[in-house]
């Protein structure tokens, strides 16, 4: 059963939570690549890492223990303190 709430705001924003705005440029930023541990995902991310690296963009690699569950809190906290943007993959 879904809950309905009444909007307490000035209603200048969209009703639902929007994803954060992306940075205008990746210069000086660190991209986190999060491997969800499904087969072949690492190869895909390896290639992305190389492509980013070729463009001089700093990359950090992460891997969660299993694709069946959300990433452990410690990994989330670590990523949040070490990266500026994130790409997660590869779900299949």
């Amino acid at each position: 059963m879904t809950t309905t709430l009444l909007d307490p705001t000035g209603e200048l924003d969209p009703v639902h939570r929007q994803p954060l705005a992306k940075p205008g440029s990746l210069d000086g930023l660190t991209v986190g690549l999060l491997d969800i541990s499904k087969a072949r995902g690492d190869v895909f991310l390896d290639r992305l890492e190389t492509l980013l690296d070729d463009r001089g963009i700093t990359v950090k690699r992460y891997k969660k223990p299993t694709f069946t569950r959300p990433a452990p809190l410690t990994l989330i906290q670590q990523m949040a303190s070490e990266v500026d943007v994130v790409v997660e993959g590869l779900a299949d």
Partner: protein
Amino acid sequence: MQDIRELDGRGIPGGYIASDVFKTAALTQGEAAGFHPDSLFVPHPIQDRTDEEMAALAEAAFENVLALIRAAP
């Protein structure tokens, strides 16, 4: 996808990549979670591809990957 939502809540924008069989599931999950992260879908299947094929997929997707983490100019 929950991970992207969690990181978004901690100030880290981004998105996730999935094979296209995930499109419907992603929509449903987004509705249930009340949050639709940016996503990119690549051609299915994935599991049986060779390293070269995976690399090629990554190359083909790269511009769209950038769109997950960088605002359009």
